[in-house]
């Protein structure tokens, strides 16, 4: 039951993108298409789960004063592994996301969960928390990417819906489109949450 709560927290109540509004640099930069958002989310989720679990294991060994550098080394190691494996086995995807993969190291979600959760809780709970946060980040990025791809390029997951040469909202694939979409989605999420709260009370 506790584990379930740890898991769903990242999906909605403390969703990294829509609720905590952290880690926005990769969020806005890579979500020009649904596939990019999904892959970036999954890469971050992998790093989150692994680093949260490992930091939880090491929490008694790492002295308090050097915990941040120690966490960063652990996180950077996993990020580099993702980067190399993706470059070797998914070269097409890597050529698109390549720039942003190393930046997962400085994504505040990863260090944030290590500091706020993994350093205080059991290995199992930390891993589940990482999974929830990671998937929360993933669905947010995929949704953002899907909307921007649909409006900006007229396609979804690479399948085109409009005739060649038809005009699309080019601004949606540029950074302003990212901010606009993010703002609207956050408003929608707040609206749904408010409705749910009213119903409950």
């Amino acid at each position: 039951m506790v584990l379930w709560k740890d898991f769903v927290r990242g999906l909605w109540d403390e969703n990294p993108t829509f609720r905590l509004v952290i880690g926005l640099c990769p969020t806005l930069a890579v979500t020009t298409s649904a596939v990019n958002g999904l892959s970036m989310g999954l890469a971050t989720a992998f790093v989150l789960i692994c680093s949260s679990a490992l930091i939880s294991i090491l929490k008694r060994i790492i002295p308090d004063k050097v915990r941040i550098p120690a966490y960063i080394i652990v996180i950077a190691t996993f990020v580099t592994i993702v980067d190399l494996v993706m470059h070797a086995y998914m070269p097409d995807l890597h050529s698109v996301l390549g720039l942003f993969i190393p930046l997962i190291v400085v994504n505040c979600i990863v260090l944030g969960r290590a500091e706020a959760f993994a350093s205080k809780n059991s290995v199992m709970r930390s891993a589940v928390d990482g999974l929830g946060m990671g998937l929360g980040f993933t669905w947010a990025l995929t949704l953002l990417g899907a909307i921007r791809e649909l409006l900006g390029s007229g396609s979804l997951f690479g399948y085109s819906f409009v005739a060649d040469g038809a005009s699309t909202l080019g601004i949606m694939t540029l950074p302003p489109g990212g901010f606009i979409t993010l703002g609207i989605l956050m408003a929608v999420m707040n609206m749904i949450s408010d409705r749910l709260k009213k119903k409950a009370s």
Partner: protein
Amino acid sequence: MNESLRMVVVLAVIAMVSAGILSMVYGTTSVIIEENQARALESSVFEVLPGTTRVEILRRNPDELGVDDPREMREEEQKTTLIYQGLDDQDRILGYAFVGEANGYGGVIRVLVGVAEDTDAILSIKVLSHTETPGLGDRIEGEDFRGRFVGKTTADPIKVAQDIDGLSGATVSSTAVADAVRESFIEVSALYRGGE
């Protein structure tokens, strides 16, 4: 153990373990990464030289390369020292291809240029890699823009605003592609025609 010594030891051990794991991962993946890149480049040669069934690799200047270590060699090769020759199924030479580079708006743009053997005119070009703005500069990848280079020879200026129409909103990117094509074309053509 006193506290500061413990901090140093723990951090050093974590760093060493990480370095060990990463060197193992790098060892296995770097080979695949290099193979992928070489294969991607070779398959692009088939695209810019239509009808090609076999690709031969010519060194521009084998003596100048002067390195024995294969990994170092590959790095040197990627700095555009190779000419790819396309042959058809009867082993006739169709043309040659080479890589050109220039700085665009967001970084280096690499283009592969395919030139016909008989007419010495450009058959097709392909943008291999770039980091231009999505939606604006990345239209250099498009068929429409790349088609503007077809048929050009070393006698043409190959310059934006002269014989090449730039892309509106992406002048820097268009100019960079034209520069990359022109400079590498002149250099390689002279070598290829002179060095046979």
